[in-house]
């Protein structure tokens, strides 16, 4: 079975632009979470969506938004990009119940010039 897939793999943008990152969860998983990982740190939680509704939001500015579609895939949007948004963006899926592990995709490497 396919794992969590993310696209694109790499992306280069300039300051002020916007970006859309995409994620397809493991088949049967209804929950998708997004994380940002900068070099030398652990992933930081951005959003969780379950059954197309936002269930949690981390400490990120309103420039970050996300949505989940009826097929449970998800998009992360970032507007007005800043140099500090350069990071690895990770998507994780789970079946949406408590005490079940999240499974991660390989991420999108976003570089801001």
């Amino acid at each position, binding site marked *: 079975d396919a794992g969590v897939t993310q696209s694109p793999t790499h992306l280069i943008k300039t300051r002020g632009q916007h970006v859309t990152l995409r994620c397809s969860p493991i088949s049967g998983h209804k*929950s998708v*979470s997004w994380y940002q990982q900068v070099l*030398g740190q652990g*992933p930081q939680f951005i959003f969780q969506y379950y059954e197309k509704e936002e269930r949690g939001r981390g400490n990120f500015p309103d420039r970050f938004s996300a949505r989940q579609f009826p097929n449970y895939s998800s998009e992360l949007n970032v507007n007005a990009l800043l140099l500090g948004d350069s990071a690895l963006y990770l998507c994780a899926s789970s079946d949406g119940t*408590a*005490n079940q592990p*999240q499974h*991660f995709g390989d991420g999108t490497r976003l570089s801001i010039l």
Partner: protein
Amino acid sequence: DQQVKQNSPSLSVQEGRISILNCDYTNSMFDYFLWYKKYPAEGPTFLISISSIKDKNEDGRFTVFLNKSAKHLSLHIVPSQPGDSAVYFCAVSAGGTSYGKLTFGQGTILTVHP
């Protein structure tokens, strides 16, 4: 304020010996604990987890121990293999509607020498 800390940035172990990775947390509301392994250019891979009702969970060469009173989590790898060389992250979550939010430590780089 870091809620999850991995105080050892790196660990070097000889092949065949035990690797012990440690993690401390501050919030007693956390009730589900996980370990992930990460290779360069890949996403984190789930290794093993434990809920707060247990103090030990084993899966093959990997054992996770939970000491709730000390708010301490450890991962034991026995025997260690060169292929185990990677960055290891502990992660925690709280119950209720917060279970979808994982809080990660900073990671420990494990190097297993042949």
